């Protein structure tokens, strides 16, 4: 057993939290089935599982969103059985959840957000601002956020907003901090900083539960991991058991536990796909920043995507990749000041999204819920949205044809749902992403730009998305993947472009590419 510093802190600490035999049923579905979770005081306990495995439901049971009585089983905190009837009950004991979708009010300041609902006020409801500001400064120092308490939350990046959430949790004297996929929308740098913070908390005696899909994070900080699958707890592994013989995380073991089968490879092979002539050629693309006149969000970007080729675009958050893609896609972002695009060798006018689609370009957004789907509409309506003329004659929709199309993609992409009439808001992230992909496949583009195609998606669904991407390449389409997950780019792409501060600062072939090479390109580009 490797002498892990993590284990050294609390070798045999008693459990701070025990959830025993938790069973929670919804009409027609059993979301949790006899789940057991034991968290030792002072540890970082990872919980992983596919989307729909029951992680969020379990946390809702723990925090009292589902009150005692609505589930079977018992919760012990500090060795005593607890029956929470709502979030205030669990918060009173110091159990604080930070949800994936941050619950901050954008137009209020950091200080106002931290003390929202918990204001330092006199008996008559008059807020004592000097006290609030001083306490906010202390809290911000503890989470390592160097911002003035008066700063509006909307002016902060996602990473810093996450820190504000954590500061808010600290203000409530947190004892058990639960983070639901905290790094899903963070770049590598911010993610690393967040994990370091968790380690610091561990030293201060704060216990954390980290819900995460990212195995490298689990490998870095977790003292133990509980794996859930299909609403049941599969196993809990202490750190020693998580590691393989080489002292590194035994990823295959965890993945096998999560999906219930061996994934031979994380990335399906794509062999024998001939890379052909250029489909998309962009030269000198520059885009003005919409908020800061005189600044360029994208500067002099040139790239080529060939038939059958999968090209990656790496970079930190805010590197200008999404901005470039959306600007190319019919000027959906900013204002182009220079640049030319050619599709299939022909200069092409991409002046509007409609024109871009007709020219054979598709852009699947990184923000499925915000920009990809009409959430309260069903699968059928969403699939046909970008190509309604394809299921219509003279402006009248042929509903039978539309159903047939939706049914075809539902089967082809294996969208797990009750049927094409299911409303997309109820689908899991992976299946929502498949609906977005179906929409673009039906528009029949030559070149697809996929922006963070697997963000927030579990391992099994990721594999399926990768297989779809490979299929597209095989069909002779060109694919440009924008991703913040470097292993994904390394595993999938024929070529990787590195972007930083709106410019392309490096291009690596599959052979040369490595995480180190990508980071080097970013760091040495300076700026």
């Amino acid at each position, binding site marked *: 057993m490797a002498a892990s510093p993590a284990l050294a802190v609390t070798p045999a600490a008693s459990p701070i939290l025990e959830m025993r035999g938790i069973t929670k*049923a919804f*009409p*027609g*579905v*059993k979301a949790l089935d006899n789940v057991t979770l034991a968290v030792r005081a002072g540890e970082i306990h990872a919980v992983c599982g596919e989307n729909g495995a029951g992680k969020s439901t379990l946390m809702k049971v723990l925090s009292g969103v589902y009150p005692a009585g609505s589930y079977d089983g018992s919760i012990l905190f500090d060795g005593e059985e607890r029956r929470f009837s709502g979030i205030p009950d669990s918060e009173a004991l110091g159990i604080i959840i930070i949800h994936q979708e941050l619950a901050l009010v954008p137009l209020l300041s950091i200080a106002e957000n931290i003390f929202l609902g918990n204001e330092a006020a006199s008996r008559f409801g008059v807020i004592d601002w000097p006290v609030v500001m001083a306490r906010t400064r202390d809290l911000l120092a503890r989470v390592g956020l160097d911002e003035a308490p008066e700063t509006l939350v909307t002016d902060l990046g996602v990473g810093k907003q996450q820190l504000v959430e954590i500061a808010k949790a600290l203000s409530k004297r947190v004892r058990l901090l639960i983070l639901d996929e905290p790094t899903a929308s963070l770049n590598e740098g911010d993610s690393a900083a967040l994990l370091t913070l968790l380690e610091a908390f561990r030293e201060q005696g704060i216990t954390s539960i980290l819900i995460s899909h990212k195995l490298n994070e689990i490998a870095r900080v977790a003292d133990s991991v509980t794996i859930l699958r299909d609403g049941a707890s599969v196993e809990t592994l202490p750190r020693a058991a998580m590691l393989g013989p080489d002292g590194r995380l035994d990823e295959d073991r965890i993945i096998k536990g999560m999906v219930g089968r061996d994934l031979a490879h994380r990335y399906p092979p794509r062999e024998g796909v001939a890379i052909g002539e250029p489909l998309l050629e962009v030269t000198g693309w520059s885009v003005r920043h919409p908020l800061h006149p005189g600044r360029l969000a994208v500067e002099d970007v040139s790239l080529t995507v060939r038939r059958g080729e999968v090209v990656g675009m790496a970079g930190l958050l805010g590197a200008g990749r999404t901005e470039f893609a959306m600007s190319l*896609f*019919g000027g*959906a972002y900013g204002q182009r000041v220079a640049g030319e695009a050619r599709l299939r060798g022909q200069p092409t006018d991409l002046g*509007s*999204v*409609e024109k*871009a*689609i*007709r020219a054979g370009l598709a*852009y699947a*957004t990184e923000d499925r819920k*915000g*920009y*990809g*789907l*009409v*959430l*309260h*509409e069903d699968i059928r*309506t969403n699939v*046909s*949205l*970008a190509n*309604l*003329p394809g299921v*219509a004659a003279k*402006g*009248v*929709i042929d*509903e*039978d044809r539309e*159903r*047939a199309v939706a049914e075809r993609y539902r089967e082809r992409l294996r969208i797990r749902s*009750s*049927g094409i*009439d*299911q*409303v997309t808001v109820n689908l899991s992230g992976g299946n929502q992403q498949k609906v977005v992909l179906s*929409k673009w496949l039906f*528009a029949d583009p030559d070149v697809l730009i996929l922006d963070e195609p697997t963000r927030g998606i579990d391992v099994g669904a990721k594999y399926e998305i990768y297989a779809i991407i490979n299929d597209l390449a095989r069909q002779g389409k060109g694919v440009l993947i924008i991703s913040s997950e470097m292993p994904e780019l390394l595993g999938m792409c024929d070529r990787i472009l590195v972007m930083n501060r709106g410019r392309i600062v490096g291009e690596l072939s599959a052979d040369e590419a490595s995480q180190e090479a990508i980071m080097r390109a970013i760091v040495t580009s300076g700026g």
Partner: protein
Amino acid sequence: MSDTATPATAPRPAAFAGFNPKAFTGSLRDYGMILCLVGIVIFFQFFTDGALLRPLNLTNLVLQNSYIVVMALGMLLVIVAGHIDLSVGSTAGFIGALAAVLMVQMGLHPLFATLLCLVAGGLIGAAQGWWVAYLRIPSFIVTLAGMLVFKGLTLALLAGQSVGPFPPDFQKLSSGFIPDIVTGGSLRITSVLVGVALALILVGSNLRRRLGQQRQGFTPEPMATFALKNALVAAVIVAFSTWLATYRGLPNVLIVMFALILLYRFVTSRTVIGRRVYALGGNEKAAKLSGINTERLTFLTFVNMGVLAALAGLIFAARLNTATPKAGLGFELDVIAACFIGGASASGGVGKVTGAVVGALIMGVMNNGMSILGIGIDYQQVIKGLVLLGAVSIDQYYRKR
């Protein structure tokens, strides 16, 4: 309890293939609104000692509400697109005044003047839609401004006076009835025949659609439900037209209204442009990134609203046979209420033409019924307000479950 999950994942028996419980509860909500209307009708029919459904009163009911229904059709699209139009009452009043000036004071031919008025309505809609769609000023503010502007312009155009009467040809728009070919007898045969024809067309088209779906291998609903629903609708249409035929027959404006309802039902449920309006209201950003020209679409919904408001203004003016500065006052409230009672969502993307029409009829029947009962205009408003709040709350409640 523990084995509830199993049947859900097991393949369903073939007879239930394509049966979707969600769609069923969805249509239950639609029927709920119709049941509510039927309940209100029965209530007033009982308490007015049968006065409500007398042919004379029924004819009046149609005439009184036609302009609200016409505007509700346009307002539904505006609301589904995620906007609101507060100016429709003022626009209707203004167009009525314009019609009076053109026909009564300037002596223009009614047909020509009517066309001019519809174009003017379209321009008013375009003027407001431009601010909303291209300059991104909230529609609430733009149309609030429009409401004041056109109320003022109505006063200016009429110089504070009522102007009338209109030429007889124009009056026929509201007070005319479809002519009877076979004269004599107390029953207007043509009107009955029109009703029967309408019922046949409706059932026929539903049947054709169903057969088409069956060919494709979908079973939308059991034959029994389908037959019952269609028989009921056909019976209501035939009974309604026969009943009206015992008085003076079908009013012209009813035919116009019915044609428009069918047209807008078709546009919203079957056409590309209709589908795009729903997508626009449901998620504007997603619609835009799917290649939909959201600005132009928003603009067009306002143009459409303007034309329908103009038509409503003409119908109202023809009915009163005079244009008054007060015409159109408060119409927007009834129209917007009709859409929301009919299940449209204030945040856009949700709403049906049939819902809005039923909502308008609920408001109309209540207005008429309460007037017959002698309830003062004061308490009528209180009751209408509470009904609006109640209907939307119930809808919200069922939507959340």
